[in-house]
Structure formats: C-alpha cells, structure tokens
C-alpha cells in the first residue's frame, strides 16, 4: 500500500484526525474541497488506519421529509450517546458557482451537541450533482470516532442515484402523498434501497404505499439475501424510529457478515465514482485554457470551414489527450 512519507505537520494532522479532533478534520475536508493535491497521502493513510465506519445515505423525492427524519433519527441515536456525523450536500448555482448551504438549520436541535458533527458541502461543478469531494470527505469522517455517518442531499434528480456511490446502506424515504412510491419505482430509484421508509405514516394512504412497495420489491428479489425492511414512520413525533435504528444496525451487521458483498459494493461504487471523476476532469480540460481547449477550438474552426466533421474531430481530440497540462 502507500508508503509515502508524511511530513511532521501532516503526521500531526493524521494523528489528530484519528484521535477525533473535529477542527483538524474540518480543515482537512476544506483542503479536499479545494482540490489540494497534497492531501492524497493523508486520505490514503486515513483510509487504511481509520475505523472505517459504514456510511448511510438518505435519499428520496423532495418533500418526503428526509431532513426532518434525519433530525429525529439523530435525536434517537443521541439518546444512546452514539456519536453522529452528517455530510449535507446542497446544489451550487450553475450560474454563479456560489451556494446557500441551509441543511444545518433543519438539524438545529443538535446544533450545540458536541456529539454531532455536521458538515455542509456544495456540489460545486460536479456533473452528477454530488460533490466530487464527498468521497474523500467521507473517508476522513469514517476514520474518526463516529458511530454513525450519514450523507444527505437535497434530492433533485441525479443526486439521488449518485448517493448510492457513496453509501453502504441506502435508506429510501417516501410519503403516501401523490404516489411517490409509484414514481420512485418508475424512476428506478427503488432498486437502490436497502431500507425503505414511508414517512408521515399517520396520514392516509400509508397502508397502500407499504403494500405497493412490498410488491415492487418482491418482484426484484432474488438478487440479494438481504430482505429490505419496509417501515412506516412519523418523523415529527419519532414514531417508528426505534425500528429504523434497529434496521440500520441490522444492515450494518449484515454487511459485516458478508464481506464479499461489501467488497463488491465498494468496487462498484469506486468504479462509478472514478468514472464520474474522470468525466469531471475531462470536462475541466475542455473548458479551461490550455492545450486541450486550444485543440477543441482548432477543430471547431476546421468543421466550420468544412475541412473536417465532428466525429473525426472528436476522435482526434481524444487521441491527443495524453497531453498532460494539469
């Protein structure tokens, strides 16, 4: 594995993070977000030496009450003094590059609780909507002394599928309103869940939704040994939360008992993330001033002057991509 020597300062950072120093961890995550190239050996070391806590992803259509659910879930876990970390991802403005990261407000109840670590992250320019830095940030958090780590996104389109690439346990939250469950089946979101929650279970239609989910999942069964629990909850009153915690613990144990499945899962995730990162890298090369962009402009000119066609040009550009101007 990595035998890169760390500087004294970096070694100190590594030790601090492993010992649970929140500020050092936060600073490291900032460096990851800033694409600081010197963090790579640190991240590797943390990945090797850290606790490796599993990550739970919370996903579902907008309005399902994910934030409220997470807020209540944290409360439930804290009653047993379990330490929790949350990575909350919000979309960046595609026009200005800025963002308003407002998920914390929905978890304000735990704002002063030193056993709860919430990090807000903007998706930045990532194609998939998920922050490119999320993976490495989760590695940092997973190396520390947290009992549970959650990743949460606002829940718009692509984000939902990408969360699978970062979570070991995926919780899908729907409500009985407006046929969310049916839509989720159609959108292909349903296959990705390990645990299904029907929130606002005290409103009408919950039985129908539970039944619809059971039917849909039954059809897809046979692919895993894990029987996805389908639970009704009421996030605002914390009804059903104990069962949720039990299901989470149960899935975590399952992954522990089936390391080959966990490995396969992580391999798939890494594949997908690597693909996304590669795309992002390419996109960047095509946009920023440099040899690759010059090529693009050159070929665009050739096409307009009818000296070439787009397909030829694209292949030619790809061939030149071993130009390293990073």
């Amino acid at each position: 594995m990595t035998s890169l020597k760390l500087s004294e300062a970096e070694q100190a950072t590594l030790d601090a993070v492993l010992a649970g120093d929140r500020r050092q961890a936060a600073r490291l995550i900032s460096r990851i977000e800033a694409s600081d190239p010197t963090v790579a050996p640190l991240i590797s070391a943390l990945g090797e030496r850290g606790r490796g806590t599993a990550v739970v992803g919370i996903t579902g259509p907008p309005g399902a009450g994910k934030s409220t659910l997470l807020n209540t879930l944290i409360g439930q876990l804290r009653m047993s003094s379990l330490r929790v970390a949350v990575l909350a991802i919000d979309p960046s403005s595609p026009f200005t590059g800025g963002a308003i990261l407002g998920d914390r407000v929905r978890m304000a109840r735990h704002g002063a609780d030193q056993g709860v670590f919430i990090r807000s992250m903007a998706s930045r320019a990532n194609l998939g909507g998920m922050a490119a830095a999320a993976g490495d940030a989760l590695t940092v958090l997973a190396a520390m002394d947290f009992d549970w780590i959650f990743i949460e996104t606002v829940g718009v389109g692509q984000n939902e599928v990408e969360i699978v690439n970062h979570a070991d346990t995926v919780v899908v939250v729907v409500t009985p309103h407006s046929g969310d469950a049916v839509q989720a089946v159609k959108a292909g979101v349903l296959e990705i869940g390990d645990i299904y929650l029907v929130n606002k279970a005290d409103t009408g239609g919950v039985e129908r939704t539970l039944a619809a989910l059971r039917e849909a999942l039954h059809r897809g069964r046979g692919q895993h040994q894990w029987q996805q629990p389908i639970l009704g909850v009421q996030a605002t009153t914390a009804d059903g939360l104990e069962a949720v915690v039990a299901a989470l613990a149960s899935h975590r144990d399952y992954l522990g008992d089936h390391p080959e499945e966990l490995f396969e899962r992580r391999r798939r995730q890494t594949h997908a993330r690597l693909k996304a990162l590669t795309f992002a890298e390419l996109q960047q090369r095509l946009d920023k001033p440099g040899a690759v962009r010059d090529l693009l402009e050159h070929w665009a000119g050739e096409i307009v002057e009818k000296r070439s066609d787009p397909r030829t040009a694209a292949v030619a550009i790809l061939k030149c991509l071993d130009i390293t101007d990073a």
Partner: protein
Amino acid sequence: MKKTDANVRTLLEDATVGLSRTATWSGLETDPFYGPEQGELFDYEKDLGNPGQYPFTRGAYPQMYRSRMWTLRNIVGYGAPEDTREGIENALRMGTAGINVVVDTLSQEAIDPDHPALWADAGQEGCSLPTVSDLEILLKGIDVTETDVAWHSTMMIYPLVVAMAKRQGKDLSRLQGSHMPDHLQLRLGGWGEAIVPAELGHRTTVECIEYCIEHSPKWALGCPQAYDLRERGASPISEIALGMAIINLTVGDLIAKGIPVDKIAPSLAWVSSSDIDFFEEIAKFRALRRVWARTMKERFGAEDPRSMRLRIACHTSGRSLPYQQPLNNLCRATVQTLAAILGGVQSVETCTYDEPISIPTEEARELATRTQQILAHEVGAARTADPLGGSYYVESLTNRIEAEALALLAKIEEIGLIRAIEEGTIEGWMDEYNYRFQQELDHQQRIVVGVNKFAPDVIEPPKRFSYDTARMQAHLARFKARKQARDSRLLEERINSLYRAARAGQNTHPAMIDALMVDATIGEVWGTVRVANGLPYDPFNAITSPFTYRG
C-alpha cells in the same frame, strides 16, 4: 465654501423631482392615466355597495369615522412591568385612547428571563412579563373588564391575562382587550420551526380562538397578523392571499369543532400594515374587505353581516422607514397613516420616525400622535367614507389586487398551507421578494430617498433610547425569588395536568391558565406543552424541564 460648477449642476439635478418608477411599490405596472376606457370597473351593488353594506368594499360602517373615530393607539413596552406602567401613564396623558402593550422578545417566544443564554434580552424591545404576578404589577388599578388593553403579542399572553382575571375573581364574559393569536405568522416571521412548529402553532391558534369565543366573547382577536407578514417580505397581494389562507384553515378547523362561523368571524380583526405606496395600500384595504365578505358568505355560509364585515387594525410599516435621515420618516408615516384612514381601517398606529433605530423616544411618540390629530382635525381625512371610491385608478387597482390575491391563494391551498410552510415554500417566496427588492435598490431601479439617492453627506447618528435598568434588575431578582417561594407541590400538579391534557390532544388553554394562576412561568407552561408534543423543552436546547412528567 465655494460651489464649483459641477457641484451646482449636481445640486440642480438632485433638486429635480423625477419619475424613477412606473410600477407600484410591490411591482404592479401602471398606466399614465385611467378612464372610462378601462371598461366597466365595477357593478356598484355587487362589487362595492355603500359603506357598511355587503361586500363592504367601501367601508365597514355606514357613517365610518363620523360615528366612530379610529382609535388612536400608541404602543408601549420596555423593561420591567413598572417601567412600562410609567410609559402607559405617559401615553394616556398625551391623548392616546387605547393602550397597546408589547412584550419583550423572551416573552414573545415564551422563554423565561432567567434563561442562561438569553437573559440579556430581557426587557428589550418590550415589557418582560413571565408570570401573572408581573402582569398584576403592570395593570395595577386597571380593571380589565372595563379598560381595553390591546396586546401586541401572540404566545401565552391571552392565558396570562385570563389567569390574572380569574385570580382577581373577574367575570371573564366581560373581559375586554385583544391580542394576536396567529402562530403561523410567527412561524414565517423568523420564529421558525424551532420556536413555533407550524402544526403545533396552528393548533394552538385554533384552540385559543375556541376558548376565547366560549369564555371571553368581548375579547378581540387579531388574526391574521399580516403586519409582520408584510414586514417579513410580502406584497399587498400576498398579504391578502396568505392571510386568507390562514383564515380559511383556521375558520375551517373551528367549524369542524362544531362552532358556527357566525360565532367566529365577528371576533376576528385583520392586523394590517400600511406601506409607502399610497394608492396601492388603499386599494388593498378595499380589495381585502371584499374578499373577506365574499369568503365568509360564499365559502363558510355566514349569515350575520358582522361576520362578513371585516374590521382592520393597522400599523404603519416599520420596514419602510430607513435609518438614514430619520426626519424624512415623519413624512412617510404621515402618508401611510393617511392611506390607512382613506382605506377605512378601524384603528391605526403611526410608526414613530425613529422606529428603525430602537425603542421610540418620548418626542417621537408625541409627534406620531400629533400626526394623527392633524389628519383628523385639520386635513379632514375622516370627513367622508371611502373618498377615493369611484376613482378609475383606485377601482382598477382594487380589482387587480383582488384577482391576483385570489390566484395566489388558490396556489397556496393547492399545496396545502401547513405543507407549504413546513417545506419552506412560503419562506422561499418571501426571501425572493426581499432579494429582488434589494437588487432593485442596488441597481437604482427603486429609489428610497436618503438611502440610495439624495443621501445626505453626513448621517447624524440616531439618538438612543435609554432607561434606568434598576427596576429591571429588581424584577429579575424578584422573579427568581418568586420561583423559589411558590407552592411547588401544587405547581407540579398543575403542570402535570397540563402535560396530560396536551398528550391527550385536548385544548390546553384551561390547563395552561390553571398553571399560570399558581405562578407557573410562561417558559414552564409552554415548555411543558412542547415536551408533550415530542419537542425539546427549550427551543434553544440550553435547558431541560425541571419537572417530572407522569402520564
């Protein structure tokens, strides 16, 4: 100092009064003039009626101000109960007919003045009133069944007053006064889900009105509290839409409890704002009355004209008064007050010119009162009801505001009001409104004199209101001592009854009042209701309940 040519040119430019904007303050585009080409703007019988006649567009009463002058009110409230009491007596001496008391931010949020993180805010922005005993000090010698005291507050104030009246052996059916039971407005106005969860807040509003109608029918209820909705970021159109959404849900829930609409609506008064666009505000008041009347009649089947006739309590807009060159605000507040009068409101509070700075000084308060008196006695603003009725412009604006408000109301009700609040949709609209407003200011598409144009070279720092905090210290010490001296067994009993009532989904007001009567504090009472509803005792998560709850 010699004035150069450039200076003179700039001064001349400044002196020209130009038209910077053709849209109303809230953004409705207007025409250079309005005339009969608009087409038929109204059917007099159907759309206007005479003042005091359905649909009450022209006014709530036939004689309007000839029979009933608008109530001159001044808001008082700061420091300890004794401090505010002094303020009340000063206001009465100056010619105020109605007492209107505001409580401090802690009391507004149902938090006690000894809160470890927030004690510094006690007595700021209003009177600190954490227990019935404090209320008794404030109102010593004032009989609340004879004198109308209006409370500019929502949380816990009504149970406090009732508890005091009961402790004094007063007949509740003769209880006078008013408050603003609208919790959803608080939720949207910055109290947020932490302090006022939408669902619990709405339920508490409904329960308060239910209790009030049954036990103290003479008590007026200011609902919706649309003044703060406006200040938060609503236009006249969304004031009507959002206010009616709150009313529709609240009245609907009360009817579902078996209370007929004709017992509900007459107790309600709309708390409104009067902002700087003179014509838009007048049109808004008129459109509002018409929408209310038609809603009560057509949606809720009201038969009593008093249900359909909306009374409006107005406060001129604080938000519209800038910090810079505050004397300009005398002019602004005058125009806004005039708009309210011509709009036919039943009571108007004129903002003091120093409102943006801090608690009003005595001088500012006096000037606000004189403004109203000049408008009444010299300008003749009250002489004739709805003087702008029939104006092509005003009728056109009235129609337009009504139509857009109803469209927005339909949109809100399609989502569901509580859901739209919980999901942040309504707050999002308000944030966007404020954002666009600021952008227009930044780009000079909207001029506020003294702020982004015609700004003075020197900004005089505002005078600050100060008062001797000695009484406040004594009040806090007394509060702590009183907590120690209470009958703790009796208190625990009453608190637990409240807890059980809340858990059982009963109307919590009787139990809240019973607890307050034995000097439970507002923080203890509301904290208990919160715990019963699965919420943390303290919205700031700094303290936990001192009680053990059973059942």
